[in-house]
């Protein structure tokens, strides 16, 4: 099911890319300097293709993804740092293109949810395990009716 939809989204991307469809990074985009190219790939893997469904610009075949890949390389060649390149793209395309949401403002909830839940979970688990070390309620007292019945039985 998930894949069908994923493929549906992908189909959208591919359809947009017709007829220049090919797989993602093209040979003519690759930078001569392998270190620079490696940085470009790392950055591309964090940026979302704006017209696709959950695809990075590194994976996508859409025209805009290609444009963005070229833009990233252009900025790198111009001497930008990785962070500057990402800021440059985000300034123009919005926070939406960031696959790794910035840890600021309301997004802090997202980033701290995991550790907070883990601490809470382990705390509850620890409290539970501790409570299991000894019987919490000793053997229950007999009820009134049971006592009467017992007395009756003993009298016989």
């Amino acid at each position: 099911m998930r894949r069908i939809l994923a493929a549906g989204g992908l189909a959208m991307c591919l359809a947009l890319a017709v007829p220049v469809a090919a797989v993602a990074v093209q040979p003519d985009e690759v930078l001569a300097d392998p270190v620079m190219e490696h940085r470009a790939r790392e950055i591309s893997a964090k940026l979302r293709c704006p017209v696709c469904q959950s695809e990075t610009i590194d994976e996508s075949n859409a025209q805009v993804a290609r444009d963005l890949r070229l833009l990233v390389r252009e900025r790198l060649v111009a001497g930008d740092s990785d962070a500057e390149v990402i800021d440059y793209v985000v300034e123009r395309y919005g926070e939406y293109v960031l696959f790794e949401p910035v840890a600021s403002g309301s997004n802090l909830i997202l980033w701290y949810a995991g550790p907070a839940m883990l601490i809470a979970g382990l705390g509850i688990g620890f409290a539970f395990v501790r409570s299991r070390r000894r019987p919490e309620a000793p053997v229950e007292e007999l009820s009134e009716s049971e006592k009467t019945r017992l007395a009756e039985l003993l009298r016989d």
Partner: protein
Amino acid sequence: MITELGHFCLILAFGVAILQALVPLVGAGRGWQGWMAVGPAAALVQFALIAVSFAALTHAFVTSDFSLRVVYENSHTAKPMLYKVAGVWGNHEGSMLLWVLILALFGAAAAVFGGELPPSLKARVLSVQAMIGVAFLAFILFTSNPFDRLALPPFNGKDLNPLLQDPGLAFHPPFLYLGYVGLSMAFSFAVAALIEGRIDAAWARWVRPWTLAAWIFLTIGIALGSWWAYYELGWGGFWFWDPVENASFMPWLLAAALLHSAIVVEKREALKSWTILLAIMAFGFSLVGTFLVRSGVITSVHAFANDPERGVFILLILAVFLGGALTLYAVRAGQMTARGMFGMVSRETGLVINNVLLAVAALVVFVGTLWPLVAEMLWGRVLSVGAPFFDAAFTPFFVLLAAVLPVGAILPWKRGQLGRVARALAPALTLALAVAVLAWVLATGRSAVGPVGAGLGAWLVSGALVDLWLRAGRGGIGARLGRIARLPRADWGRVVAHGGLGVTILGIALLTANATEDIRVVREGESFDLGSYVITLDRVERFEGPNYHTTMATMTARQGGRVVAVLHPEKRLYPVARMPTTEAAIDNGVFRDLYLVIGDPQEGGGWAVRSYIKPFANWIWMGAIIMAIGGALSLSDRRTRVAVAAARRTGQPLQPPVQPAE
């Protein structure tokens, strides 16, 4: 005619489901045997009716009846037969019909194999199962009817999305649905037990096989999807953390947690109320997944707002079932008293840690998946949450889980000694560290993922072997091996499944850390180096497929002058759907895959060629299969076959072991 029959049967099934939801429930409440007995009969009838309906839709696809809207939109006369059949569930309407078919199948299986259940519990389980059926049958009939006719049938159809025309993907949805829907049994058992007010070891023994079966199917389904992505999308990615994938991964995590907590209920009568909650949430997350995928809310909030009918309907189903079950839980949970006592160092504690880690991991995926929606609704922030977030936020949980798993697995119930466990695991730890160091030395990159993952994988596999060895008791090697061979299948299942997880983790880590990639322009006849291989592009030709045009390359991979493989990567164009696809050519190996992709012709001559060495790729899916085999071994254990014993006692014909989804 056949189509109308199918449509009619679906409506009848809706009626039967309503009957099955009400009559046994009332019967169980009043203690009326006759009313309770309606449950099993209705479950079988409902399944038969939906099966006829499904067969009718399949018939329409096979005969290319384009007067049906879904057939027109998703099929074509030139499509190979396998994909005509797979096309039945390759669209929204048909996939929902498959969903209710499997739901009814599980209900019928519970009716047939649930012989040893107390009659009132069985009646209530079937009733709850039917309520889910009513909701989804209504959803199909009122919002997504696959039997809709077109007034003017076109001559031919629009074809199925070519990406879906693949054997791996043809069987991916049925397995996934068997998993999703299988969890409905755990849910029905939980709700029935809450109504009943009784949860004990016997309940856990009944609910566990269903959960196990669902988990096995989910494991296979997810692995198939991931494997398909690996070879079909053309660059060898195997997991993208996209919301649709997460929708299947969350129930998998919770089902895994439920499997383990149900053991504690069964053996020690502790963790009862938590297990009930997990059973409710595991199916709840299946419904959440269905909502996310089916409502279109993932694609964009606006797509959802423009066509909210289906989304709102599923949201309503989700609210009613999850809300109802949780309310019932809040009222009744207090009555469930834990009995078993255990020390701080014990298998119980280990399983509690397992549950905390799995549940929190599932919640992290949940929060990350829904965050874009929440952020847009509350703060108007349009943002994305993708792989970099999940890699960072999710991975630590699995590292922790893998680190403590072998320790927890060999701890005894009630009270254990860490010293003894440490001595037993010392060889496994040594091996794991050695593997980690080896991975560090051999790594092409310098990331920590490779060594840590390889070490953890080795730790899990060798820990599983230690587990097996400890179960063999004392004595000479011969005596021990004899005892190992006679161990209960549940023990084998545990060892095999844990080892499988190790294999998967090892594969993921080594593939992620050490893949080699090469992108270049190659002319026919030219060669280039890829790692220790020399790849030659021999020729590129054009052919016609049954329903596509293809550009096929012939490439030879040589190592030290010896031919390793001749591969044929393709680029296809499906003219009806007007869509190109890449068919990568892969030379599968135990330690590496060679992965070749042919791209577009270049302006100055030559072809764009992408080639990869993917180390340990197949270990990822092999591990998943091993996990599923472990689950199946555990499922075939005597303990879960009590139904057979019960059937034998009452003189009924012997049924095969509980396999709810044959």
